[in-house]
């Protein structure tokens, strides 16, 4: 009895030692990740949440607890309200244009056989360039005196005199959103292209044999089968448009007409040194951004849960 038990115990001990080793190795591999993400993301997030409840302002003595005072102050601030509205306009324009343009580009690339690799490279190029450089290139295109936009529109006879595009608020918002769309459309197109390529070709053949035209096939096969991809693409473009900073900052700086929430956070914290006000606003922006990206997060959660 005792003699028989011993080897069994040995085996299970060896097994548990191996599992122990595995656990230690696993921990060793992720400890740098825990350190970096913990120190530079999780702690600062907690810090933001806590500090937004105090008055932290290098210009004023003391850091008294003010509860939700900073949050109330952001709601009372007319500039902040304007920034929220601008951000909303950017999101609507960017998501709409990217959905339509991205779907068009994805359908085109899915159809094309010859030279697809090169067309794909052309498509993704704007996404790969530094957003600041993009914005500067477009700033020159929008230049009121010597810009390409005025030049082309005059050559086409659509306008007779040069326009100062950023004098008009609606135009300015649209032109800034357009630069953002130029950069982000490739991502939408790539996500939708991946979805399109997962549709089995046989479905289209079956539809054709049943006498369905291309429009009918698009509506009853393509659209339903890429709806998952569309959801991801839409939430991605929403989050990115929501966090728009570079384009608006380069093209119009601190102008109230085009200022986004993130620009407002940057100005409050790093130009006016109202740290806790900036933190409260950034928490609100994070919550709003999290809510709109919930689709994406839920998908991640669903995928990781079953293991």
């Amino acid at each position, binding site marked *: 009895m005792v003699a028989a038990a011993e080897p069994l115990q040995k085996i299970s001990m060896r097994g548990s030692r191996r599992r122990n080793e595995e656990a230690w190795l696993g921990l060793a591999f992720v400890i740098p990740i825990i350190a970096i993400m913990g120190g530079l993301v999780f702690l600062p997030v907690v810090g933001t949440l806590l500090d937004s409840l105090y008055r932290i302002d290098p210009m004023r003595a003391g850091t008294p607890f003010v509860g939700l005072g900073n949050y109330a102050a952001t709601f009372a601030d007319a500039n902040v309200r304007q920034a929220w509205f601008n951000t909303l306009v950017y999101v609507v324009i960017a998501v709409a244009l990217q959905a339509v343009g991205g779907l068009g580009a994805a359908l085109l690339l899915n159809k094309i056989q010859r030279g697809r690799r090169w067309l794909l490279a052309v498509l993704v190029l704007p996404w*790969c360039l530094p957003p600041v450089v993009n914005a500067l290139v477009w700033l020159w295109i929008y230049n009121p005196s010597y810009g390409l936009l005025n030049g082309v529109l005059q050559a086409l006879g659509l306008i007779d005199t040069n326009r100062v595009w950023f004098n008009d608020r609606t135009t300015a918002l649209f032109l800034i959103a357009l630069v953002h769309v130029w950069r982000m459309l490739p991502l939408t197109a790539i996500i939708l292209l991946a979805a399109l390529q997962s549709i089995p070709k046989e479905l289209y053949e079956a539809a054709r044999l049943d006498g369905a035209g291309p429009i009918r096939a698009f509506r009853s096969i393509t659209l339903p089968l890429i709806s998952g991809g569309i959801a991801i693409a839409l939430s991605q473009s929403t989050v990115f448009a929501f966090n728009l900073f570079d384009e608006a900052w380069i093209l119009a700086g601190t102008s109230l007409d085009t200022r986004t929430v993130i620009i407002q956070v940057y100005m409050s914290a790093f130009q006016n040194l109202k740290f806790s006000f900036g933190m409260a606003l950034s928490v609100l922006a994070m919550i709003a951004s999290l809510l709109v990206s919930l689709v994406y997060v839920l998908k991640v959660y669903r995928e990781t849960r079953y293991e």
Partner: protein
Amino acid sequence: MSRRSLSRIAGQVGTAAAVLLLLVWSLGPVFWALVTSLTPPADLLSRELRLWPANPSLEHYAKLFGATSSSQGNAVQSVWPQFSAAFVNSLVTSLASTVITVALAAFGAYAFVRLRFPGRELLFVLVVATLAIPAYTVMIPLYRLMISLKLIDTYVGVTLIYVSAFLPLALWLMRSVYQAMPISLEEAAWLDGAGRTYTLMRIVLPLAAPGLIASAILTFLSAWGQFMVPLVFSPTLATKPLTVLIPEFVTRNYVDYGLMNAAGILAIVPPVLLVLFLNRFLVSGLMAGATK
């Protein structure tokens, strides 16, 4: 019959028009920046619309590279010391954060997929969830933290922030790469007595090379294009990258669109090279990162 061939021709014309539209949309602004950078300063201020400069000149580039420089007839300080320093800063911070991010993701994602350790699922979900946390939410506490650590305006500080920002996506991508890999190869190596680490280094990582390259490209491009982080954390030329320096050509010292476009063209050379030569990995990485 003729109606069908007509509609086919119409379809082909439509496709060709769509391709042309995509080419003009994607490449037009970049082409225009190139044209501007090659146009002599005087011609930039002409009303005439030209798709290629009448007398192309490298004057703007000479201004960037020259020891002396002039702006509107006045001798001004050369921009080369600033430009070269910023270029080096961009390269150092982008390459360093790419190497560290990819290395951490290569080992970390392997642990998340193949090694059982306590808290594995929770940690992974937490790290990936930070993809949804915008960078600016952590910016202010991070700024105070970096000041207390004396890491403002240092390569170490900027690189660490980049790594913390780009690591979640790289982990996500590498995890999907390892998950797609059959475990039988590793099991065969273990049966032959190879250790875990040896198997990972010699068998798994070489097979994961396309995924590693994709993560490296995505990380490099994100770091190379960063603007808001260095705007706060790189106030001087000690670490200031091109993305922060180039806008200053227009807003502060000069109003010099030619110089700005020339600098912009040089700043997009690394991303353009990546797109030209490694586009396959980039697109597959984007597809895996965005849809998995």
